[in-house]
């Protein structure tokens, strides 16, 4: 199989449609299962009561906000290095979804922080760096709209995305580098999880749901972007009519 075939928007367009449909179905199934575990099966937390149930959306949204930015930065690097149109379109398609995930991370965090920490917002290291992540996404989207020529916008956005990637390790290690309000990691690759199994299961299922959701919406968006930007190509009229 020749993988480079799919670097062409014409051959990627139908493949993206198939992956998006499968991901959407997976997202629905996983979300139903994850919400059932998180809201019904998982017991009340001993110290936080029911307020802790925000964890099942807060952690997946926060992880996806960072991970989507990482993927966007990788596509941006490919777009700059190989000057491939589709890589830039993938980066373009990921930015709005990443921005929404960053917004949800901050929003759900605020509504978790108020009952547990006593405040909706503090200039804590992790919260502030996540706010900067949201602004980076919004900056990339604004830059895209500010540059009329799409190929120049591709390069400008790719550069901004790569420079902004320095914020990712800052977010990730913020709870270790600075001793401010946000707690340390409960789940990491290097140690056993510091939470009950059923709670961990619910959180992981919701994370996979968020993952499938982000794939489904960003691939659907990239299909629209391909049609919008390749409108002059003959194949676009053919698939649009089909």
């Amino acid at each position, binding site marked *: 199989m020749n993988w480079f075939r799919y670097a062409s928007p014409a051959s990627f367009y139908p493949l993206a449609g198939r992956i998006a449909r499968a991901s959407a179905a997976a997202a629905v199934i996983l979300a139903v299962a994850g919400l059932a575990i998180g809201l019904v099966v998982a017991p009340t937390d001993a110290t936080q009561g029911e307020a802790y149930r925000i964890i099942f959306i807060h952690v997946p949204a926060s992880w996806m906000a960072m991970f989507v930015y990482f993927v966007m930065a990788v596509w941006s690097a490919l777009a700059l290095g190989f000057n491939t*149109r589709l890589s830039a379109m993938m980066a373009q398609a990921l930015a709005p979804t990443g921005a929404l995930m960053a917004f949800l991370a901050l929003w759900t965090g605020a509504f*978790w922080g108020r009952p547990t920490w006593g405040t909706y917002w503090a200039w804590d290291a992790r919260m502030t760096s996540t706010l900067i992540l949201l602004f980076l996404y919004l900056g990339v989207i604004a830059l895209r709209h500010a540059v009329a020529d799409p190929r120049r916008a591709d390069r400008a956005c790719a550069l901004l995305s790569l420079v902004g990637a320095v914020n990712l390790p800052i977010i990730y290690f913020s709870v270790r580098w600075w001793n401010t309000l946000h707690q340390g990691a409960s789940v990491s690759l290097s140690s056993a999880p510091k939470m009950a199994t059923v709670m961990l299961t619910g959180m992981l299922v919701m994370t996979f749901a968020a993952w499938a959701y982000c794939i489904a919406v960003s691939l659907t968006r990239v299909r629209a972007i391909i049609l919008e930007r*390749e409108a002059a190509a003959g194949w*676009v009229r053919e698939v649009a009519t089909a």
Partner: protein
Amino acid sequence: MSEFLAMGGYAWYVWMAYGAVAVVVVAETLAVRVRLRAARTAARRTDPAAAPPAARFERENPA
């Protein structure tokens, strides 16, 4: 059921958080579907020779 909705007194916080996620997920799903449909309709109507400047630029400057 009302006990479930009350969330042990944390209803405001829990449902404001979950509600925002629901609104965002539904809105974004609808938005990308509308955008894809609009792009299909526009592509069907586009005469490649009379393509918009951006699309013409892409055709003349293939990556």
